[in-house]
């Protein structure tokens, strides 16, 4: 069976128990996750690695509450979210999670400030409060002077900073980063990684999907996936601490 990441119970922010995700492709069944047991501690920094088709994207979607398990359980901050409907999953994403993508995924017609405000808008914050928070976050990622710009007027690194600021707006428990440096040159990628490490030091749990070993080795631990199962685990939060 799958190996389990070492963890103590009360600190587990994310925990999968015998998680299976099966897709029906025509007549064939594809086991994207074939019974995964894993848990990540609050405040840890994990890298999920693996070749394409290994199930790492599915894993990310499940952990990010974008998709649901076929069987098994997923505990997010102690709540079993594996049986929740679309509406409740949206609510969990809104309150607990933040996302950073390889292609930044900013909304092009909105200004930097409006992009950062987006989670606050769905949280129902009023306009003045969210504007203040957005400016504060822009400053935190070093883009205080760019709040009025549109994403198309920014460089890749700047766009990813905006995405990070947006991911931080709802003060999430876990930040998921899907190949966050994939579209950036190595110097800019390094800066983004530094920013993520800084956020981790401030207490955010960070789970990053990457195929670059250089980046993965900066995490506390690395989860190697293969054929829908955890192949091996390197390092741990305790070790890095």
């Amino acid at each position, binding site marked *: 069976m799958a190996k389990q990441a070492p963890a103590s119970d009360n600190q587990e922010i994310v925990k999968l128990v015998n998680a299976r995700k099966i897709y029906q492709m025509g007549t064939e069944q594809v086991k994207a996750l074939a019974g995964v047991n894993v848990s990540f501690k609050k405040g840890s920094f994990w890298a999920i690695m693996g070749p394409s088709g290994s199930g790492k994207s599915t894993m990310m*979607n499940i952990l*990010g509450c*974008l*998709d649901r398990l076929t069987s098994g359980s997923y505990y997010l901050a102690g709540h079993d979210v594996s049986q929740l409907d*679309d*509406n409740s999953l*949206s*609510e*969990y*994403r*809104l*309150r607990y*999670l933040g*996302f950073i*993508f390889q292609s930044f*995924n*900013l*909304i*092009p*017609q909105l200004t930097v400030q409006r992009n950062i405000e*987006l*989670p606050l*808008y*769905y*949280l*129902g914050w*009023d*306009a003045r409060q969210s504007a203040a928070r957005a400016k504060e976050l822009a400053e935190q990622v070093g883009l205080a002077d760019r709040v009025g710009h549109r994403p198309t007027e920014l460089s890749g690194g700047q766009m990813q900073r905006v995405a990070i600021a*947006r991911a931080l707006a*709802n003060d999430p428990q876990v930040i998921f980063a899907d190949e966050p440096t994939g579209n950036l040159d190595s110097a800019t990628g390094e800066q983004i990684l530094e920013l993520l490490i800084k956020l981790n030091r401030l207490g955010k749990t960070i789970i990053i999907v990457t195929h670059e070993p250089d980046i993965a080795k900066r995490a506390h631990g690395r989860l190697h996936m293969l054929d829908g199962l955890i192949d091996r685990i390197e390092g741990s939060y305790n070790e890095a601490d």
Partner: protein
Amino acid sequence: MRQTRIGRNIWLGIENLLLHKLRSFLTMLGVVFGVGSVVAMLSVGEGASKEALEQIRKLGSNNIIISSMKSAEEEATSTTHSHMSIYGLTYEDYRRLAQSFEDVQQTAPVKLMRRDSRLYDRVIELRVVGTTPEWFELVPREVLAGRVLLKSDQEKYAPVAVLTEFGARKILATESTIGQTVRMGNGQFEVIGIVRSESGQAGNIQIPDQDVDAYIPIEVARRYFGDIFTKRTSSGEEREKIELHQMIVQVDEPKKVEAVAAGIERMLEQFHKKKDYVVSVPLALLKQAEAMKRRFNIVLGSIAGISLLVGGIGIMNIMLASVTERTREIGIRRAIGAKRRQIVYQFLIETVVLSTMGGIIGLGVGALIPFLITYFSGMVTMMTVKGILVPLLISMTIGILFGLYPAVHAAQVDPIVALRHE
């Protein structure tokens, strides 16, 4: 809280539409013209029915008008021989009519002739109306000066005349009006009063009074001008004997008007060998005109409805394209935590904003059309609160109706797929 939310949503919708100004404008165009035509139609219809009511008032809704008319046979003989044709309503008809109908309140006999009238060197052809004081009850017009005809004028065979404002101005000019003696034909008449006139057509019924009327007691008219009239035609002289040109009958209740008219028709049939009279009921004709106008409105309404439908389909089409184009945005919003319902709201509000803006512009276009119609054709048009609110509500409804499908479609987008969408 809730309200500011909606306000922000509307504002976001407007912002999004402003991003594609030309596209939004073109999308709106269908609704603009749809709403414009509804507004124009309502204001023309409203104006027409106001005009119809006005005409009923002028004609008197309880009135029946019986007019003398040369019968077809008479017409045929009179051209071949030089003889006197005798036709039309008689004094006897008037007496019988006034006495035998319970529901008839009053009757005014009318004798008409055109005569040159003069005061000093001013001449104008007036229509001399020989009638009784009842005329002024049946064709109520504002008395501008002096008084109308009285029973006593009738009894005394007094040569007095009531002029209309228009005729009086023409002939009396600057002289003090009341008490002047005006020559009409061979008689001298003292002007005792001036009334306002309401000339014009109502459907195909002539309104009883004209601008150039001079009202004199009927007995006086008979004594001065007689019953025989000579007409000069190209083939010589034509003489005809007509006792009464018209009778105006007032019935006590509008719903009895048609029954009484039928009774009068039957009565006249018994005493007239030829059909030398016409009974017209303004109310019935106006009812017909109203029914036709209603049919007209239904036709116009369906055309406007179709253009609104086409406009709505245009909006739906563009919104569906917009949803596809913005799949990634939808995915981002969903990943961040937007619920399906919120995505539906977002797109629905955008569509409603679009169609309502179209509606507002359409209101402007639609207000311009009746204005131009009035300016060029003189038709009465009227903008009412209903005429403004109904098209606005229709345009909002179109936004909801045709926005719902694209919005629901947008909310069905799978965030995982959407985020990968290029």
